[in-house]
């Protein structure tokens, strides 16, 4: 298998080919207990096989009991993506053998998903983009296989059933995605949505959000789908983008060479920066789905659905629109504040702490300096909303210049000391009062007749020297703009006199 694509310039393939990409996302739902038993889902870091029972171990005679909360979280997701939900659905058995599947079948949903036909809209560098979502259904997670070495050095596989039976939502998109960036952004936006509605913690590193991309190419101007390759094992949003970009180039190189692709599943290697063959999919699997006889059909009555809809919080798209339209924030600030829950909280709390404060500068401070400080810090960083409000006010009324304000914010974030106190201690308050600056200006003009003459002769840059002298005389506390205006005014007045 060629990997020539790696050397090609990124994006070149898309001049000749259109990428057709569908995305499947599996996410663990945020419930206290597992999908069909009462075992706790809080197994992170726990001893292997410590969160298990007859049901999630698939012991003889064990029976599933549906977790209603998990169903609600899928219904909430469906409502959030504008999907429709059937009045009655059911559970189906998906039959296949694998050591991580204790019953030899997975309880899933086949032809009646809890949510169907929704959409997800997000921003990209090329503007807003909408992906249609085919379906979202509920199933149970498998156990975790750990490959190890046995006592005699042989290869063995260990099974940890702590994950077995955790509620898992599968969200399948239509093949609407066309670029690697869209693929990444789709996954990011879905994560944000799931976190916003509390459906999932959706942490990719913890396997709570697993993204698979089905990538195929077709020559521009043609309609028929090309041969599809499934790409998995992407552990971050960056790898999603890189893997899809790599796969587009790889497939283009093969097609350019006159060869054809084969149906296969490929994994993504972050280390090697390439996808690799995992298994071929020449025959389609026959999962022999049939209705799960151990669980009655599931009725979703209108009242239940309505109450779930009613409890939905403001969704990210509406949130961003409100920030832009009602608060006048830039699209960038709105996106950052909605996507970063911590930054969003600080923004909201700051506005709440200082009624009447203009939102735009607060947003700038939060998305700019606050995030810079927070992301660079080793430990947690705490900025008091009331102090941030005070800082923004000082800048707004000219009492603090931006450079000093940055310094103050850093000091506050580090020590928690109040903004006013820091400004006073460090003597950072600007002298913006013309009267207070008047005497100093007089002294500077008197002491620098040559510069005054230059200004009068039309050498504009000489005024900068005089402002510098004022700054020097005030040890930097003068408001430079005010000082310059005062010098100009004094010299103009002198001319007229």
């Amino acid at each position: 298998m060629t990997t020539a694509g790696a050397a090609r310039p990124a994006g070149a393939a898309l001049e000749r080919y259109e990428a057709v990409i569908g995305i499947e996302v599996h996410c663990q739902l945020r419930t206290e207990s597992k999908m069909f038993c009462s075992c706790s889902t809080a197994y992170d870091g726990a001893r292997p096989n410590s969160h298990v029972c007859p049901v999630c171990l698939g012991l003889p005679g064990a029976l599933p009991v549906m977790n209603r909360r998990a169903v609600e979280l899928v219904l909430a997701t469906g409502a959030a993506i504008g999907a429709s939900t059937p009045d009655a659905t059911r559970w189906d058995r998906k039959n296949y053998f694998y050591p991580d599947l204790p019953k030899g079948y997975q309880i899933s949903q086949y032809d009646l998903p809890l949510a169907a036909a929704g959409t997800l809209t997000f921003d990209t560098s090329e503007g807003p983009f909408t992906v249609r979502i085919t379906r979202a259904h509920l199933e149970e997670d498998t156990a975790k296989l750990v490959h190890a070495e046995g006592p005699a050095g042989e290869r063995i596989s260990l099974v940890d059933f702590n994950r077995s039976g955790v509620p898992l939502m599968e969200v399948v998109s239509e093949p609407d995605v066309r670029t690697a960036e869209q693929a990444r952004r789709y996954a990011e936006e879905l994560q944000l949505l799931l976190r916003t509605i509390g459906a999932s913690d959706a942490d990719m590193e913890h396997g709570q959000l697993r993204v698979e991309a089905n990538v195929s190419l077709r020559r521009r101007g043609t309609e028929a789908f090309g041969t599809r390759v499934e790409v998995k094992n992407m552990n971050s949003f960056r790898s999603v983008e890189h893997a899809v970009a790599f796969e587009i180039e790889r497939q283009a190189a093969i097609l350019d060479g006159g060869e054809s692709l084969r149906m296969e599943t490929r994994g993504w290697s972050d280390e090697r920066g390439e996808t690799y063959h995992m298994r071929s999919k020449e025959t389609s699997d026959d999962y022999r789905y049939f209705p799960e006889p151990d669980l009655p059909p599931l009725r979703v009555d209108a009242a239940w659905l309505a109450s779930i809809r009613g409890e939905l919080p403001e969704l990210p798209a509406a949130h961003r629109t409100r920030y832009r339209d009602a608060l006048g924030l830039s699209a960038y600030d709105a996106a950052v504040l909605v996507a970063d829950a911590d930054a969003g909280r600080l923004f909201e709390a700051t506005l709440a702490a200082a009624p009447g404060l203009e939102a735009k500068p607060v947003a700038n401070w939060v998305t700019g300096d606050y995030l810079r400080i927070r992301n660079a810090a080793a430990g947690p960083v705490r900025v008091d909303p009331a102090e941030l409000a005070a800082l923004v006010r000082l800048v707004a009324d000219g009492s603090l210049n931006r450079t000093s304000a940055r310094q103050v914010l850093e000091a506050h974030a580090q020590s928690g000391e109040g903004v006013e106190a820091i400004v006073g201690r460090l003597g950072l308050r600007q002298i913006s009062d013309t009267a207070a600056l008047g005497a100093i200006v007089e002294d500077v003009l008197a002491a620098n007749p040559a510069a005054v003459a230059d200004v009068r002769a039309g050498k504009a840059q000489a005024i900068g020297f005089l402002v510098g002298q004022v700054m020097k005389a005030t040890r930097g506390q003068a408001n430079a703009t005010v000082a310059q205006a005062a010098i100009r005014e004094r010299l103009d007045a002198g001319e007229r006199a």
Partner: protein
Amino acid sequence: MTAVREATRLLGHELATRLRTGELSAREITLAHLEVAERQNHALNAWLVIEREKSLDEADAADARLAAARADGPDALDALHPLLGLPVAVKDLVSVAGGQCTSGSRIIDGYVAPYDAHVTERLRDAGAVILGKTNMDEFAMGSSNEYSAYGPVSNPWDLDTVPGGSSGGSAAAVAAYHAPFGIGTDTGGSIRQPAALSGIVGLKPTYGRVSRYGIVAFASSLDQIGPLTRDARDAAALLHAVAGRDERDSTSAPVPVPDDLLRLPASDDEAAAWLEGKRLGLPREYFVEGMEPGVEARIREAVRALEGAGATIEDVSLPHTDYGLATYYIVVPAEASANLARYDGVRYGRSVRLPGADFIADYLATRGDGFGPEVKRRIMLGTYALSAGYYDAFYLKAQKVRTLIKRDFDEVFGSGIDALVAPTSPSVAFRFGARTADPVAMYLSDACTLPANMAGIAGVSLPCGLSNGLPVGLQFIGPPWSELELLRFSRGYEAITAAAEWRRLEPAQLTQADDATGPTPAERAARLAAA
């Protein structure tokens, strides 16, 4: 020896009375039954394990409960369940914590259940004594108990014949007085048919009446757990103990269990009088071609007796009955093929590991080695019926026909018929090997019982005489939740035939069954096969 013999001959409710009067203790009762069971297991092979120590501990606990209640007064004594201190034979697919649960299969040989089934919990609550686990067709697939991985079971009426199946061990144990109570499961007739062939009472409750939690699943949408006893009152008491909603089985129904199950009339006059004016339907499709004349004769006599007691008998038709067998053998294997997928050797039971092979090879080896031929046959049938391209033609179609079968019953019961009366099995007990060579002949054993499973309704089989010296079973089939009525019909029939000669007969070969040096059932089967 005589005292022992007498204690085992008593019915459950008779033992319960003697326990309360102090004539017998639970320990004495348990010891008596243990003695017979242990002595006869060589000849009958009804038990896969007899739990002497545990059952005596349970008996002692029952005696302690009894003593405490006696000290507390008559109300406390009345509050005790009729099953307290009485031995129960439990089919080896019911999970009993700390004990084996082979389901008659080699593939889970060595598995120890870490938890109690719902039924087990309810038996413990009632204070019953679990005497041991009984033999069965592997994963309850069979009608003769010949498909057990642990050898066939002999019918105490004729040791060369089968006791029926799949609950053959429980049926033989109850028929041979090893226990007054037996637990069986019925997916297509596995309680009623062995009850018929062994000359005892067997009830299949309405689907959803008894929780399946902890019962090794065969076909989930049909499996039900029910009693095997020697009379209707005991069947009612055992059903009362184990029935009712259980949150752990989502298909168990929130339907109240009538306490009147504990108050079936003791008086024959009262029981017989209840039959007066009842409407019984005689479904013509159940008098199948190939039914043994002796069976049909006994059923017709029983119908006449019921008529004589004041019940009206009406000819009715269940037109889709003929499709029952075919649809059953699609739906049931389909569900079974999935239910049995968990036996893969990864977590428990038998496991074949081939050095250097991948796990698929290990699966194939484990399952190839661990499952018997009938189980493999059904897994193949079911896998085929669910396969892409065949699903609609087989599984989906069968489910639609199942709806029609159910509608047949709905219409008959909707017309005012209280219950149907029919044969349980078209034949009496057959010889070892008579049907194992022909799966379809074996499947036909259940032609009269499986429609009730397909429809999810209740049915009971009770003895109605002998044909060629072997028991014939009479079946009552009723609408959902009609167990109490079916048991009243049964009790009424017992009352009007109380004086019948055949009621005095014990299984004809009990004496031979006492011989621990004679042939085992497996040896008898081998000898018959050679002949």
